[in-house]
């Protein structure tokens, strides 16, 4: 799993917890991966949408203009499960070498 895949996993995991608008998605990921800029995370989020793993809708946002909310699709859920398995396998493989 590359860093890109880890970011993708985190994006899908975040969206599986509920629909979120752009800033809500990018900020925690940037906090978790401080050497990654939001533009790179946004590009990934956009890529997920193009692959049909997420969709979006416009909804009123906190008194301001409408916001774009992202939601995970059923294809996204399936992909999340797949990536979780990959992540667990990788974590076990690394742990077998004594890496904590």
């Amino acid at each position, binding site marked *: 799993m590359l860093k890109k895949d880890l970011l993708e996993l985190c994006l899908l995991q975040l969206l599986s917890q509920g629909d979120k*608008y*752009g*800033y809500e998605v*990018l900020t925690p990921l*940037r906090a978790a991966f401080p050497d990654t*800029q*939001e*533009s*790179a995370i*946004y*590009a990934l989020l*956009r890529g997920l949408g193009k692959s049909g793993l997420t969709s979006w809708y416009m909804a009123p946002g906190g008194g*301001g*203009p409408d*916001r*774009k909310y992202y939601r995970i699709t059923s294809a996204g859920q399936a992909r999340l499960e797949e990536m979780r398995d990959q992540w667990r396998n990788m974590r076990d493989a690394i742990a077998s070498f004594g890496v904590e």
Partner: protein
Amino acid sequence: MMKQQRPLTKEQYLKKFSRAVRWRLPPQESEEAIADYRELVFQPERDESKLVEELGEPVQAAHLLTDVKAYRRWLKIFAVLAFGLFLLAKWAWMGHSSFYFSFADQWWYPVWVMAVGLALSLYWFRRYGQKNGPLSKRLVLALVVVLAFGAGTMAWNWYVFDSSFLDSYVERYPLIIPWQVILQRELIINGGMICALIALAGLILAKCYDRRWLALYTLAVTVAAVCGFIIFFCRSIDIGYAVRSSAQSYLFARLIPIGAAGLIGTGVALC
């Protein structure tokens, strides 16, 4: 010593990003990305002084969204079309070509450039370009202006190449260039160059906003090619009696089909 860069304001950031992303992405995708970035940049929580640090350089941010293969393909097409426009502008200004093909008269060179430009641009934009919203009123206005200029130039050349007009001046005042001819020369030289520039603008707008702006490119490139054709023709002929009597019919038997081809191309670009 390194120059300290001033941080971008939110407006400046979005402007730079919009410009970069419009050049790289198809119009609908770029509009979508700009709307998303507008939301991200103008979040009340966003600290303006940390914009670049958090979001990255605007051009870099646009690059991350770019389909590199498609973008390179566009750059190649743009380079060929822009070079063609450069040739048309240069020929309008210089009145001669620095290269020569023995199998064709020089006045056909602008028409070749136009033919390649029309074929290539129509193919690329019909395949990869995108319409974006209703037809722009600015586009309609620009088309009317270029069309009026083209028609006016053709009409003025019809008048100047009329054998009775040429005969009367050449015979009565052989050493004086009549004002009608001076005006004709200014029209085709300046018109040729300006139309090449307008065509370049049309090309860029077609990529960035709506593929129907290509109609401006096709029309302006046609007028520039017509001007080039006339300039080369005028430079090549010797105004003898035989030429004076047949110049108008020779010229317009060629200019009318060229203009018609350009108009058809313009119609196709608008559809």
